[in-house]
């Protein structure tokens, strides 16, 4: 049972960076009546798309630089950097090493890539907090850089993915602080659903070939190559409406959290229809459940920190807040975290 209770770790700041280019779903080429229905059910009106020269690491770099600056952090005290993405710069080396150097961090820095998508922020949060705790103070400050440029692996001719996903990179700053409340997690996985969201070729199970580049027609509005994301929306929906609420309930029960005292419940922004089912199942008031879907879409692992920046920024900066965040998706992989923030640093959304 993957429950974690990690003391002595605090969140100091959160930032997010999105590409400048806005792609409006109202312009997506499909029959108008179907398009209106699609937009209202997924709840995504527009999203940001990275140009061909911009990688996830560039967005995370910008988010990190701004956050370090506003935190007034001495870079030599950042002893840990974790980068969570499914769109790294290269197959090898790990992008986290590149980011350590690019950010000018010490060579004594612990760096690591984690390959997870939608659940990635919660998972990365658990990893980096565990490291800070285990370091017992020798890892002083840490950066969790999380995001994806999913547009690079989506087919424009696939209505089941293109209108849904946007690009974003985020940075979360954490610090070791003896005696602080810390963080509480529930984490889980189910590889039985591995094929529910998958890029079939280009790894080492199916090495890239000429056939990988051919666009295949599946049905009206759905054509893609084997290097594009395939999404079985029905299977993912079925998984998420049961597992997401269950994870939040397990977290609340295990750690005896007073649900009513939680200020905000930040969910992975999958799609509005699904997220509203999850919210209603948990009987949460709409005021406690922020959404950034409308303007940014599903930004994979970046959704939770991005939503905190775009929807809760003023409150994060001025108040002490308690949060439950829950993320779920590709893997299949999911988890929830309970944590507090106390007047954290939260720069304005960055555009790059």
């Amino acid at each position, binding site marked *: 049972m993957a429950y974690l209770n990690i003391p002595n770790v605090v969140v100091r700041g959160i930032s997010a960076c999105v590409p400048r280019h806005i792609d409006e779903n109202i312009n997506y080429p499909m029959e108008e009546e179907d398009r209106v*229905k699609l937009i209202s*059910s997924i709840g995504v009106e527009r999203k940001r798309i990275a140009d061909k020269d911009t990688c996830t690491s560039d967005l995370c770099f910008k988010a990190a630089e701004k956050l370090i600056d506003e935190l007034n952090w001495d870079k030599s005290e950042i002893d840990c950097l974790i980068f969570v993405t499914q769109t790294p710069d290269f197959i090898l080396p790990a992008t986290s090493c590149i980011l350590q150097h690019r950010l000018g961090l010490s060579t004594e820095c612990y760096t690591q890539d984690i390959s997870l998508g939608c659940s990635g922020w919660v998972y990365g949060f658990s990893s980096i907090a565990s490291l800070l705790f285990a370091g017992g103070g020798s890892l002083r400050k840490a950066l969790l850089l999380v995001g994806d440029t999913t547009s690079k692996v989506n087919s424009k001719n696939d209505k089941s993915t293109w209108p849904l996903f946007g690009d974003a990179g985020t940075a979360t700053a954490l610090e070791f602080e003896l005696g602080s409340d810390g963080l509480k997690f529930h984490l889980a996985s189910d590889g039985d659903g591995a094929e*529910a969201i998958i890029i079939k070729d280009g790894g080492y199970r199916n090495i890239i070939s000429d056939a990988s580049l051919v666009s295949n027609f599946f049905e009206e509005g759905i054509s893609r190559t084997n290097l594009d994301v395939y999404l*079985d*929306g*029905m*299977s993912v*929906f*079925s*998984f998420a*409406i*049961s597992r997401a609420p269950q994870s939040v309930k397990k977290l609340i029960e295990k750690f005896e959290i007073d649900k009513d005292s939680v200020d905000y419940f930040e969910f992975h922004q999958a799609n509005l*229809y*699904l997220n509203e*089912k999850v919210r209603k199942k948990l009987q949460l008031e709409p005021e406690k459940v922020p959404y950034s879907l409308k303007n940014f879409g599903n930004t994979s692992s970046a959704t939770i920190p991005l939503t905190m920046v775009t929807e809760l920024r003023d409150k994060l900066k001025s108040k002490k807040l308690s949060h439950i965040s829950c993320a779920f998706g590709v893997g299949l992989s999911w988890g929830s975290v309970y944590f507090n923030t106390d007047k954290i640093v939260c720069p304005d959304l960055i555009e790059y």
Partner: protein
Amino acid sequence: MELEKFVANFAAQFDETDASIFTAETKFRDVEEWSSILALSLIAMVDEEYDVKLKGDDIRNSQTVNDLYEIVKSRK
């Protein structure tokens, strides 16, 4: 679980289609109102009423309401 109740629960997902047209033998994909969103609402109904997870393939490989009933029943 009862087939009759399952058919009624199935029919209740449709807003514009008269519930009385649904039987166990109805080929649901032929119903004009059928859509990908309706499929999601069906999955949600099965999750809520029967605590069973339907996968995309369960729906894609089923023809009639009864086909889905049999899948749900086998997982109860």
